[in-house]
């Protein structure tokens, strides 16, 4: 799988109305700010918000897709969480290859939802094979 420095890629995903409910069950994170609209509003949020680690999983998916889909290609991923992610609004994960050497690629990524940066300064290392 060849990746070249400067190569760019993108993944688009729109969380549906129940994404956070399924993710709560799958991950074990039942914090009500993600699954209970009334609770989220009561603590000053604009409504239920996405789990940060779900958004990070979308960044991970964009990275493995860029490496040809091999789930084991991803050997490192670091992210910073910023804005709050909302349901039923498209997220765009964009990435760019920074360096390639010894069958490894370093990639930088970020995830945006409209004007909100959900994940910034993401760095991934991919094993190319």
């Amino acid at each position: 799988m060849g990746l070249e420095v400067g190569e760019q890629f993108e993944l688009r995903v729109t969380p549906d109305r129940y994404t956070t409910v399924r993710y709560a069950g799958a991950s074990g994170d039942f914090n009500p700010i993600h699954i209970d609209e009334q609770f989220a509003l009561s603590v000053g949020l604009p409504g239920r918000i996405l789990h940060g680690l779900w958004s990070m999983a979308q960044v991970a998916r964009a990275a493995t897709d860029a490496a040809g889909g091999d789930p084991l290609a991803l050997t490192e991923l670091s992210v910073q969480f910023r804005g709050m992610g909302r349901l039923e609004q498209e997220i765009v994960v964009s990435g760019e290859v920074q360096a390639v050497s010894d069958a490894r690629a370093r990639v930088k990524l970020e995830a945006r939802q409209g004007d909100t940066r959900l994940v910034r300064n993401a760095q991934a290392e991919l094993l190319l094979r």
Partner: protein
Amino acid sequence: MSVPSDKVGKRYPPLTYAVGREKIREYAAATGFEHPLHHDLDTARAAGYADLLAPPMFVVVYCASLFQAALFDPELEIDFAHLVHGGQAFSWQQPVLAGDEITTTLTVKDISERAGLRFDTFETVSVNQRGERTAVGTWSTIIRGEEH
């Protein structure tokens, strides 16, 4: 804001998580990891794996309850009303398959204050039933002071 930096270095009792085939399918479906290695046993076996392969981010499933236990540790004096998950990093080593038993240890790496914000860093180290490392996680939280 309390900053109990004397708790840096504290380790929590290891936690062992048994990786289930249906849990892998459930997690992969909830996050959009559609690769057949996470869903189809025949594909996984044809690729040389004994069972379904967990997506890389499945690490959060086998580490989550330990991370939550640390956040609820009264000695760390965490103010939940002002807590945010600021950053996260993982490195991955051995693949994780359904049927594996993953044991994770969590250590407090840093508790410090800068500009009225408290920054905590936790590290998880996970190994499989053969003692091979599967993932190392760095979990970073930020606690805002009352004035922020």
